[in-house]
C-alpha cells in the first residue's frame, strides 16, 4: 500500500469555495470530515442517489435526508495517469471508477495502490484523507484495496 502523495498544493487550488461550498453539498462535505460517507435519500420517493444533487433527480423533490453508507465498492475500471501535464496531479497516479456498494452510483477518484496491484472487480474501501484549504480543515474521498 502506497501512502498518499502530497498534491503540490494543486488540488486544493481547484477546490474553489464556489464549488465545494454549495449549500446542498454541505452535509456530504461535513460527513467526509467526520469519516462518514453520507448519501442523500429523497424524503418523498425514497430514491438514494450519488453524487449529491440540489434536488432528487428522480422526482425533483428538494426534501432530502442523509444516510450513512458503508464506505465500500468495487473497481469498475482504472487508468494509470502518467503525463505530467495533468496539471493538478502528482503522477503516476491510478484513477478509478468505483461502483458503490449500494448501487447508488459511481465515484471517480484516486485508487491508493500502484497500477500493478489493481484489477477490475476488486473490492475497495473508501477513505477520507484530511487536508487544510484556505485555513479550513477539509476531507477528500479516495479508495484503497480491501486486504
Amino acid at each position, binding site marked *: 500500500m502506497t501512502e498518499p502523495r502530497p498534491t503540490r498544493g494543486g*488540488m486544493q*487550488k*481547484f*477546490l*474553489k469555495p464556489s*464549488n*465545494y461550498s*454549495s449549500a446542498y*453539498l454541505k452535509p*456530504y*462535505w461535513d460527513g467526509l470530515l467526520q469519516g462518514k460517507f453520507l448519501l442523500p435519500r429523497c424524503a418523498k420517493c425514497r430514491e438514494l*442517489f*450519488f*453524487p*449529491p444533487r440540489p434536488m432528487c*433527480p428522480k422526482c425533483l423533490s428538494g426534501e432530502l435526508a442523509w444516510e450513512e453508507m458503508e464506505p465500500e465498492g468495487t473497481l*469498475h*475500471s*482504472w*487508468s*494509470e*495517469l*502518467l*503525463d505530467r*501535464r*495533468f*496539471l*493538478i*496531479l502528482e503522477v503516476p*497516479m491510478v*484513477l*478509478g*471508477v468505483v*461502483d*458503490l456498494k449500494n*448501487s*447508488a*452510483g*459511481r*465515484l*471517480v*477518484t*484516486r485508487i491508493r495502490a500502484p*497500477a500493478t496491484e489493481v484489477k*477490475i472487480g476488486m473490492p475497495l474501501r473508501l477513505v477520507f484523507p484530511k487536508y487544510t484549504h484556505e485555513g479550513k480543515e477539509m476531507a*477528500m*474521498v*479516495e479508495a484503497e484495496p480491501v486486504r
Partner: protein
Amino acid sequence: MPGRVAVVGYGVPFPCGQYPKTTEVEMALEAIKAALGSTPLSKDEVEGLFSVATIEPDPILGLDMHHVTTYLRLEPRSMARLSLGGLSGGLAVKYAMNEIQLGHISTALVYAASRERSITDEIVLRAMKHRAFPDTGMRLFEPVSTQPYIPFSAIPIYALSARRYMHESGATEEHFAMAAVRNRKGAVENPWAAFREPLTVEEVMKSRKIATPIKLLDCCASLDGAAAIVLASEEKARKITDTPVWIRGWGEHHDKSTFIPTDTTQGSICRFVAAETAARRAYEKTGLAPKEVDVADIYAPFSPQELILPEDLGLFPRGGMVRAIEEGETDDDGRVPINTDGGVTSRGHPFSVTPIYEFINIVRQLRGEAARQVKDPRIGLIHVEGGMVNSSMVFLLEAGG
C-alpha cells in the same frame, strides 16, 4: 412529406494545424469563400448562415457571426449559432436542414472556424507565467468535491472507457494501435490532414504513455482549422450540381450523464447509449439497414473508441470490432471502410470543425472524388458526438445524380 436536402458544395481553405497569427473570423471568411467557390452560387444567394460556438472574439454572445456578415456584406434571412460541445457542428447542419425543409430558405452555408489550439497555448503560457490555472476546465466535469481527481483533460476519462472495453471484449492495446494506423493511411493522402507521415503499429505501441492504456499516438490533437459546406433544397440542388449528395436522414440522442455515467452503476462506459440510440433512429427514419452503409466517418477522439463506436452504430456486432480491425474490414477495401481521410486522430481535431470535416469526407466519397476512394459507395454514415459520447447524432447520406 418534407422535401429532400442535399450537400452541394464544400471548402477547406487550409490544412488543419496551428495558426497563431490569424483570427477565427478571418479563417471563417476563407472557409466560406472556398465552399462557395465549389458551387456556381454567388454570396448573395446564401439564404441561411449557420455556425458553431467560437472562442474569439466573444464566446458568449455569438456576435462573431455579425463580423462575418459585415466583412462579406451578407444579408441572410436565417442565421444561428449552435453550441453543445463536439456535437455543435452536427446541430448546425440539422438546423440548416430544418430551415430548408420548413421552406424558410433554399440554400444554407454551414461553417466552423476554430483556433482552439493556439488559444489554449496562449492560456497555458499565461497561466504558467502567473502560476495560476483557470478552473473552467474543471467545471466541465462533476463537482470536484464529489468526483475528486478528475483531471484537466478528457484523456483519462476515455482511458477508463478503453480499459473497461478491453476487459469486456478481449481487445488489446495493439488493436487500438491498428485503428490509429488505419486512420493514418487516410491522412497520408488527405491534403488537409495535420498528420501525414506513415505510421506503424510498433510506433504507436512505443509512443509515450499518457493515461494507460492510451498512448500519445492513440490521441487526437487539438488544433486550429476551418471548413464549410453548402446545403440546398432539392429544387435548388438540381440547378447547382450534377452530383448532389442527399442527406437521407439523421438520428439523435442524449444520455443522462456528463462524461462518466455516475448516477447509476448500470450505465456502461464502453458501450455508448447515445450513439446506439441515435443510429437506431437514423436507420428507422431512413428505412436503411446498417449493412447498406458503404463508408463511414466516425467521431472517435481516441483510438480505443474507434473499436467501440462501430459496434454501437450497428456496423459490427458487439465485440466484433476486435476481429474486424485485425482483418482490415474497416480499411478502404474492407467491408465497411471507416475514416478514409484520417479520422479524428490523424486529420487533426478542432472539435467544432470536425463534424464539417466528416461531412466533407463522406460527400467526397459519395461523389467519387476522394483521394482514397472507396469503390462505388452509395450510402455514407456520419457519426458526431459530444462529452464522452453523452450526445450523438448519426447522419445517413446517399449519392445522388
